[in-house]
């Protein structure tokens, strides 16, 4: 699993079952072998991965009651959050003008009404309800931006900040950075935590804890072996600068 969602408004966990082409919603407090509340699966869903990956990331917009799943080939499907069974997506974003490549992580900012897609070492920013083959309204990309790819990223909507991976190859980020949702082009990040430099780990997942002004990162060995020799960890940084 490369990315999943927690919906604090409705107290639900949203995950994918990649090889069964399904999106599962569980109670927020689910424990043990508990059945999902809802399953989106079937021919109408159009959910599709690849032989080697895909269907491994999902995001939830609890405010607008929508679920976002990136699929093969280079598309993002949007479902009603309460959809259950073999249902068609509400809309689909994808096509050459979108610049979306591969199966890319997605996050939504319901305050600024944007949808961000981290694809090909770029952060593609669309109107939240963008559909079809449309151009992004902004693209954060370039050497000054340091933008890279990461398994999952977040938007801290109250401050309009995108918290994503930077300073890395296209497939991995050695740092995490904060950009404004209004940034466009080759724009330097507003703030950065050089995670690998500080810890030896390559971050792959990002979660935010605004109440404690912390960012929580998952990190597993990613070819670059952590110096301490333990390959799996969860690391928490205090980062009040992005929450204040």
């Amino acid at each position, binding site marked *: 699993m490369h990315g999943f969602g927690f919906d*604090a408004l409705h107290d639900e966990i949203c995950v994918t079952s990649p090889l069964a082409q*399904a999106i*599962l919603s569980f109670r927020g407090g689910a424990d043990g072998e508990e059945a*999902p509340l809802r399953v989106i699966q079937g021919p109408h869903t159009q959910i599709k991965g690849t032989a080697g990956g*895909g269907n491994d990331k999902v995001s939830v917009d609890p405010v607008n009651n929508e679920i976002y799943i990136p699929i093969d080939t280079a598309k993002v499907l949007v479902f009603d959050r309460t959809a259950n069974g073999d249902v068609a997506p509400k809309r689909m974003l994808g096509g050459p003008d979108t610049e979306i490549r591969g199966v890319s992580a997605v996050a939504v900012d319901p305050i600024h009404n944007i949808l961000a897609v981290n694809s090909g070492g770029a952060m593609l920013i669309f109107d939240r309800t963008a559909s079809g083959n449309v151009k992004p309204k902004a693209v954060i990309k370039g050497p000054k931006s340091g933008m890279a790819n990461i398994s999952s990223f977040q938007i801290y909507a109250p401050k309009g900040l995108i918290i994503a991976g930077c300073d890395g190859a296209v497939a991995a980020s050695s740092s995490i950075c904060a950009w404004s949702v209004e940034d466009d082009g080759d724009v330097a990040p507003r*703030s950065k935590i050089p995670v690998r430099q500080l810890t030896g780990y390559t971050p*792959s997942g990002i979660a935010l804890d605004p109440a404690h002004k912390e960012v929580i990162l*998952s990190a597993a060995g990613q070819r670059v072996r952590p110096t301490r020799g333990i390959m799996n*960890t*969860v690391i928490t940084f205090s980062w009040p600068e992005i929450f204040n």
Partner: protein
Amino acid sequence: MSTNKRRNRGRGILVGVAAVAVGLFGLSGLLRWRGSAQLVSIEEIPDTGDACYRPVSAESKLKAASENLFSTFEEIPVYAQDARPLDITRPPVRDILDTAPIYSSVGLDLEHNEVMLQDANTWSIKVFSRLDNAKPGAPPTEPRRVIVGPKTDVQFNSCVWVDPASGDIYSVENDIGDVIVVFDHDATGDIEPKRKLKVTHRAFAMAIDESTKELFLSVQYPPQVAVYSKTASGNDKPIRLLIGDKTKLSDSHGLAIDTKNKLLFINNWGNISDYRVPGSGRFEPPSITVYPLDADGDTPPLRVIQGPKTQMDWPGAMSIDPATGDLYVANDMGQSIIVFHSKDQGDLTPAKVIKGLKTHISYPTGVFVDAKNQELWVTNLGNSSATVYPLNASGDVAPLRIIRSAEEGKVSLRFGKTQALVYDPIREQILVPN
């Protein structure tokens, strides 16, 4: 408003949200879907001391602060568009990790009386004496040698297998590198493999038929069994491939071969789709499918073991008793070893189940039948150990011996690959899939 007041108010709001959510969704349990896909591995991180939850010391905070020119601006946002990015150089405030091994697979070298354990947490293979035994009160068992380091290419590995003739150690990688690496029996430290074989992504388990010198490899998805020459290397292609809808393979994991009766056993988790067809996904109960050992192409199974009576729940490695043909299955989420007879089929209860508190079994993913010594080996993902039983053991039986690589009573984090996470602000919990 002070930071603390803001924090408390935020928590109050979250509690309110939780209360509303419970009110709105409290009936949802009555409407739960009853399919086979279930969330099973999101758990509260234990605070038993088994996991390393390490608040950074005041001393290191002070040191970091003195080295961080920006620390005095800690409560001040600095968002100057044209300014140099604000680099945060303070260390993390906490980390969660497990310093003990997380054993996923076991192989035996009966010629040298040695046991090889695959550690998914340090990307290593640890070699112990077959007769090692950590008695109560004794310190953790020390390995004789360890294969570990970047040159080894051991990473995300799911299966270790020992060639009974040469003692060569094979290790199957399940993720990024997509290789089988082969080491000499005496390999130790950071050493390059003597041979590498490029294999399909999501390879899981292997076995070798010495009579034909063939290497059998299960692949999770697209589900298949690839058969190579035992000495294949580099980009050598499979001799044959068992794959296709008729095979009933689905999210295939454990593999075992019965060379006497010429049978191939594969277990399947039942997550099914054709990646070429959108929306073709479905769930089925886990199964064991049985084929002729020389099956090729889209060959249907000779028989299928499947259904609720079987108790299968994330079946992992499998091993066969060559004398009886009995099939031993590491039943990860079932917290058990389940045993089926060679000709079993349909929905039936296992012939034997090893399970219970006395067994020390905890999330078993590796199993090996030692026919020579009439013993059964199990690796426990959940407690950093390998346990040994009499081959005829059944029920809640104490192990004969334990290789224990952590303190007694260890509860492992069971981290396999911590790629993703979410934060639950309602319960103030971090959710980490493994």
